[in-house]
Each structure stands twice: as C-alpha cells, then as structure tokens.
C-alpha cells in the first residue's frame, strides 16, 4: 500500500461542515433495475445540444448513439438500454434556465441487449494521443463532478498549453454527497486505469489522486490499488476536510500551491483536474467499450427512508430511483439535485437522472432558511470566501446593478459555493443574488456584442453603397466623355436610338 503525502498549499476561508455521509456509505452501491421508460435529454453537458440521429419508432440497442455532438462544445448521448424510441419531446429537466428541454424517450424492451463494438486496441501506449482524444469524445464522457464539461474538449484545450499535473478530484466536500467516496472504495483500480489513459492522452507523467482525510476507506482502497499497479507516476494526496476544497481552482491551489489566475483555467498553471468518476468512465469506455450510460448517485437527506448510493442508468426518472431506495419519508419539503449548497431545487420528480446528477437530496428544510435582514457589515462572508472576494461589497453593487464595480470586485470569479450564505447572520441569499447579477452581466455583454455586430454591418453597408454610387458616377462620366470625343453625329444617333426604344415601350 502506498501512503498518502501531505505537503499542501493553503486555502483561504472555507468552512468545516457536518458531513451527513455516514448513512449513505454504510452499504455497498446497489444497482437500480432498468425502468420501463428512460428519458434522455439531448443536453447533458455544457455547450451546444447534441443532434438526434434516431427517429421515433426506431429500435435501439444499449450503447447505441442517439444524438451526435453538434458544435464546438458538445457531447454525444447514447441509449442506456435496448428498446424503442417512442418520443422526442420537451420534458421537465433540471437546468439553470427554463424547465423543459428536448429529450429522447425510450421504452425499454427488457432485454438490455448491447450493440456490438469492435475489439479494443490491445496496447493503449501505441495509440496516438489525438486518436485517443477522438475516441474519448465518442464515448460521451463529460465531467461527472457536476459541471459536465465534455472531457475530450477539456483535454484538447489543455493540450494547447504546457501541462504538468493531472489531478484526480476525489474531494467530495459538499455535505451528503458520497458517490465518489463509494466509487473509490469499490472501483479504485478502474479509476487508476482511467488516470493512466488520461495521462497518456495528455502526454504527462504526473498524477495526483486527491482525497479528503476523513475518507479512510477510500484512501485505503486507492493505496492498495496503487501498490498493486506499481506505477510511480501516481501519487496519493490527502487534503483536510474543508468545504469547498473540492472546487477545481481551490484543489489546484491546495495540491500544487499555484493560484489559478482570475478568469483563467487550471491549465494556465499546468494542471488539469478531472473527477474520479470521470476517470472511471474513461476507463469503461476506452477499455470496456461501454459509453457513459450509467452513473453512481447518492440518494440522501432526512426525507429519504434508506439513504444509499445507487448505480442507475442515465434517463431513469428521479421518482424511480427514490422508489427503489425505499421511497420518501413523510412529507419532505425540498427535492434537490446536487448538494445542499450548490444543487438545484426542483419541483417534480419526473425529472430524469442525467450525467450531472451526483446526488438526489430530499430534505425537510433547506440550510438557507430564515428571514432576510439588513447587512450589518460584520465581514464574516469575506473571511470565509475561498476566492478572497468581498461578498458584502459585491452585494451592494449587485443591488445597485453597478456592472463596472461588480467586474472590478471580481464577481466573475465567484464560484457560487454558498459559504457566504451559510455564515451570514442576516440570512442574505448572497449566492443567489450573485448568480442573478452574473446573468445580467452576461446579458449585457451579449447585447453589446449584438449591437457592435449590427453597427459593423451597417457601416460596411454604407461603405458599399458609397462605393457603388461612386462607381456608377465614374462609369457615367466615362460614357459622357467618350460620347463627347466621338462628336455630335454619334450623339445624335444615340439619342435617336433611345427615342425609338422608348416609343417601342
């Protein structure tokens, strides 16, 4: 077994939160049976929606491509089981904006027959990194930590810069969520294999696998798997259990002591962060030829009878997942997809489980409840902000809609972790305000870009009209000149011809 190392950078602020993870980690991951109907949104990633390539009534097999990537930032969607496509229609989904999105609905035939795949390349190291990246793209693998950024594009983007470290993120710092923890306990070898594939794709020789210090079982299993593998490029690291040390930029700072610049990416400081679940998904696709059609998710909260981690097919509705675990406790208040701090409250459990769903949380009361009072300028929010912003200042500027100041005070660097909300004695929903202010800033920028384009087109058109007018005038004067040179007889002839023509009309 390889022992974890501790040399760490420092994280500003953050909070020690009660984990609530014991209940969901006491039993192994259980498989949710394939439901009769699966609902697969065509947008399960950031970026452009995928383009459906199947028709209604078509029979599909497990792992068959349903929608292909369309646009720069896009990922394909695969059938989670075999069956018949019965509809492609708007369906309630969990998104930041809007409630319904186009989904492909499959009625399962119960056979779960998989589509045949060509045999794997026996040795990955003979594969060119570009080929490997193209393959990863086809597997529909996206970041499973919750941001769902297409993995292949993230790798391609990182390859344009100088890369040093691959960081596997096993820091599941938000309360209740434990799906990565369970995955590390049960599939450590697959995670490490995924890390090796990712390292090969990036052509780098260093990978930190980072786990929180309170996840002893996960550390133990990863250490064992590393010992068996004997790959000295892999290093296991422990970080303290502080929320939000699992944020991408925060993790880079903790592990490498390098700060990701404002508005920049971890690749600017030579790092690439991937979730452990993503690494396992890469392994499943490249080695096992199974595209991303299922994921592990935590079902927890005081509104759940039996909290546990389950592996469910993508497209299973939340209702089916919860029913499998044993159903809701009496009259739960809130249904949240994601963690209690960064998750999204949803109003119906008809919503399907998607690639982003790392947790289904059912609680009686949310952590942010309480009457909103005036800001008393205590400054607690600034001392817990992991990005070292000044939330109280930002709050004033957000209320005043002062875009310039909001930018100046770094609103765009806010990671929306929710720490400031939790400590605020006046219960001000700061994160929600910041989220809305960010939206307005984006809208303004869009408007401005549209106006600029319209102006450029308008000016170009005016220039063109001027040019055409000048050309016409030049042509006319040239004709006049040549007629004058030819003499009065020719002019008379031209006039006569013209007269005849007008009489004809």
């Amino acid at each position, binding site marked *: 077994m390889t022992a974890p190392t501790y040399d760490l950078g420092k994280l500003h602020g953050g909070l020690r939160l009660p984990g609530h993870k014991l209940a969901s980690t006491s039993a192994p991951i259980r498989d949710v049976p394939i439901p009769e109907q699966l609902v697969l949104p065509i947008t399960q990633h950031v970026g452009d929606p995928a383009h459906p390539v199947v028709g209604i009534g078509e029979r599909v097999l497990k792992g068959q491509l349903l929608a292909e990537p369309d646009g720069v930032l896009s990922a394909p969607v695969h059938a989670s089981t075999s069956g018949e496509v019965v509809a492609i229609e708007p369906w309630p989904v969990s998104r930041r904006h809007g409630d319904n999105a186009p989904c492909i609905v499959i009625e399962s035939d119960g056979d779960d027959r998989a589509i045949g795949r060509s045999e794997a390349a026996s040795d990955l190291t003979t594969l060119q990194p570009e080929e490997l990246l193209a393959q990863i793209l086809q597997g529909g693998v996206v970041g499973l930590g919750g941001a769902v950024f297409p993995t292949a594009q993230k790798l391609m983007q990182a390859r344009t810069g100088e890369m040093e470290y691959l960081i596997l993120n096993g820091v599941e710092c938000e309360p209740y969520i434990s799906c990565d923890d369970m995955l590390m306990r049960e599939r450590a070898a697959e995670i490490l294999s995924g890390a090796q594939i990712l390292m090969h794709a990036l052509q780098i020789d260093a990978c930190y696998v980072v786990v929180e210090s309170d996840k002893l079982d996960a550390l133990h299993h990863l250490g064992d798997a590393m010992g068996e593998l004997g790959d000295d490029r892999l290093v296991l690291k422990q970080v303290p259990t502080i929320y939000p040390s699992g944020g991408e930029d925060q993790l880079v700072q903790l592990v490498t002591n390098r700060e990701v610049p404002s508005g920049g990416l971890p690749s600017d400081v030579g790092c690439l962060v991937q979730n452990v679940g993503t690494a396992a998904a890469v392994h499943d696709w490249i080695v096992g030829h199974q595209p991303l059609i299922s994921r592990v998710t935590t079902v927890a909260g005081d509104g759940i009878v039996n909290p546990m981690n389950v592996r469910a097919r993508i497209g299973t509705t939340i209702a089916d997942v919860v029913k499998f675990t044993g159903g809701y406790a009496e009259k739960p208040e809130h249904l949240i997809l994601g963690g209690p701090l960064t998750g999204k409250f949803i109003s119906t459990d008809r919503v399907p489980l998607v690639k982003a769903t790392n947790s289904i949380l059912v609680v009686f009361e949310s952590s942010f409840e309480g009457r909103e009072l005036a800001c008393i300028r205590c400054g607690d929010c600034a001392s817990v902000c992991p990005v070292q912003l000044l939330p109280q200042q930002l709050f004033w500027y957000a209320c005043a809609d002062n875009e310039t100041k909001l930018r100046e005070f770094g609103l765009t660097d806010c990671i929306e972790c929710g720490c400031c909300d939790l400590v605020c004695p006046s219960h001000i929903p700061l994160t929600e305000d910041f989220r809305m202010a960010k939206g307005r800033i984006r809208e303004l920028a869009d408007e401005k870009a*549209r106006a600029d384009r319209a*102006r450029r*087109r*308008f000016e170009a058109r005016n220039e063109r009209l001027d040019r055409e007018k000048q050309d016409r005038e030049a042509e006319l004067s040239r004709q006049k000149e040549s007629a004058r040179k030819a003499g009065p007889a020719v002019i008379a002839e031209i006039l006569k011809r013209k007269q005849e023509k007008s009489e004809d009309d």
Partner: protein
Amino acid sequence: MWTAVFTIALIALVAGLGLSFASRRLPSDASDLVEQVNELLPQTQCAQCGYPGCRPYANAIVDGSAGINLCPPGGDSTVQRLATLLGKDVIPLVEHVETSVAVIDETLCIGCVHCRNACPVDAIVGAQHFMHTIIESECTGCELCVAPCPVDCISMKALT
C-alpha cells in the same frame, strides 16, 4: 514692474496658443460624446427615433435637439444609461416595443428585392426573381423591410 507684466503676458500667450492648438488638433468633446452616446444605442438602425440611424440620433442628442427617450428598441435601460452619461433626468420612454425579428413567408415572396435594399444591416439574402430570406442572427428587428414589401409577406416574430 514691466518684467512682471511681460512674464504674465508671455504665460498668457503660451497658454492661449496651447489651447487653440488643442481645440483644433485634438478630437473635440462633442464628437467624442457623440461616439459615447452612439456606443449606448442598440444599433438597430431602425429610425424609430425619427432620425435615419443610430449615429444621427446620437448627434441630435448631443446638440440638444432630441430627447434621450426616443429609442424604443433600447428600452428603459438605455434611457437610464444615457441619463447617467449626460447628467440628465430619467424620463419615461415614448414607446415600448418587444424585441423581434422579421420573417419572410417564402411561399408568398416574389423576389422583388425591395426589402433587401431597405435592410440597414444586410440581413436579407436574395436576388431579383429569386426567393428571399432573412438571416435571423443578424436581424435587428428594425421593421424597415415590412413597409416596402408589395405582397406583405414579411411579419415580425417576437423573440421570447
């Protein structure tokens, strides 16, 4: 005493020359201000303000002949920003319009190019006797193409 008079006169002369140079050679405030006002306008070039485009309207605002509330596509936020820039009071907008784009009913279009010639941002594609269509992403919703159409095949579709 004469030294003092001479010195002051010299300073006045140098300063005067400097100022006259600055006023002639450096870009004047007015055109700079017109540029800033123009920046705030939505650039739809729709002429709903009564001026033939956004820049002429910006000119009119700066020389004081037009109010800051004449731009319907810009909405209340544009009035607000103009008021802040020019130090004027926020006044209610003369008319509210929805953001929309023009749509050509292609089954009716006779290919007369009148609408294409009217479009201030070249967002209409088409040639004589051929069907026309609108590039939706470039359309500013100015409605200038609606009136010239002889067969009334252009309608405005609201953007939600």
